[in-house]
């Protein structure tokens, strides 16, 4: 017992020293040198040729398309991982508060509208597929919470198709432009913004379904496993 306590103190000491070293190193790096000149000027210089006018959207979907494509792959893989652990739990019947049900009814129509707005405005201002997808996912979570038996009753097949739609459409567009002589993930100039809107719409729907699927914590479709 005494050796155990000694070990714990030693662990705390070593961990504390290691974290202090990290803090000192990062602070030193922050204080002494300005963190590189940054890529802001390069981005703003390349912006006229990009498919989106908002610099963040341009970085996400045009300059660094690989990151976003693989990010969709991570989301889809996480959902596959959660679903492979079993079906969603059939929770015990609950009595959702009338306030929740009423509120959900009142604000439900707002979610698709806000989602559409964020998608559309993402090309020129703050917004985009991830924000829009998160808003839609909130609608799905509210729907699940205001059900009497939350969770497993979401339809399985449409969710499967929708969850891979984001990654699928993105990949299809990225490969499709190669048929026209472009390179992977290179958007031909006149079609650029249309293609981005297509990718973003599919990504928003896919992200919303994936987040809702992650929220219920298992494969949908009922059952008790």
């Amino acid at each position, binding site marked *: 017992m005494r050796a155990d306590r000694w070990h714990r103190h030693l662990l705390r000491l070593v961990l504390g020293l290691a974290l202090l070293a990290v803090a000192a190193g990062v602070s030193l790096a922050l204080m002494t040198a300005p963190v590189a000149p*940054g890529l802001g000027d390069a981005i703003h210089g390349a912006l006229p040729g990009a498919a989106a006018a908002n610099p963040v959207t341009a970085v996400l979907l045009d300059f660094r398309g690989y*990151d976003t494509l693989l990010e969709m792959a991570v989301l889809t*893989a996480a959902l596959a991982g959660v679903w492979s652990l079993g079906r969603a739990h059939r929770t015990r019947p609950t009595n959702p508060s009338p306030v929740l049900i009423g509120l959900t009814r009142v604000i439900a129509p707002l979610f698709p509208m806000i989602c559409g707005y964020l998608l559309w405005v993402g090309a020129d201002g703050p917004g985009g597929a991830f924000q829009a997808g998160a808003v839609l996912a909130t609608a799905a979570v509210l729907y699940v919470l205001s059900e009497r038996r939350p969770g497993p009753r979401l339809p399985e097949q449409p969710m499967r198709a929708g969850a891979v739609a984001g990654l699928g459409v993105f990949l299809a567009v990225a490969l499709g432009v190669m048929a026209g002589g472009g390179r992977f993930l290179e958007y031909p100039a006149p079609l650029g913004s249309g293609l981005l809107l297509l990718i973003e719409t599919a990504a928003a729907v896919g992200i919303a379904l994936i987040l809702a699927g992650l*929220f219920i914590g298992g494969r949908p479709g009922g059952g008790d496993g």
Partner: protein
Amino acid sequence: MDNGLLFAAGGLGVFLIGAWAVVLRAHLIRKILALNLMSSGAFLLLVGAGAIGHAGVDPVPQAMVITGIVVSISATALGLAIVLRIAKTTGRALLPEDRERTPTDRPLR
């Protein structure tokens, strides 16, 4: 004081608190919470460091962080699902090493 520096220092602090807890807390839900603290701290540090001494916004850290947030959400959800499975199978939300070490009659920390 520079705003970016303030955010970066705050992010560093949050990251360190999370790192402390992820090592020392045995309960897996606490470990996941601590991992989330660490990633939030890292995001804040990244955005703050990108804003030091700049008048405008550097879009690259912002794009990296928004990608990171989405990845962190999906990793958290997968982790929570696995914790639920561990708790259901073994009866306790602990890693195997901690399960041997922690007596069953003591509340988990």
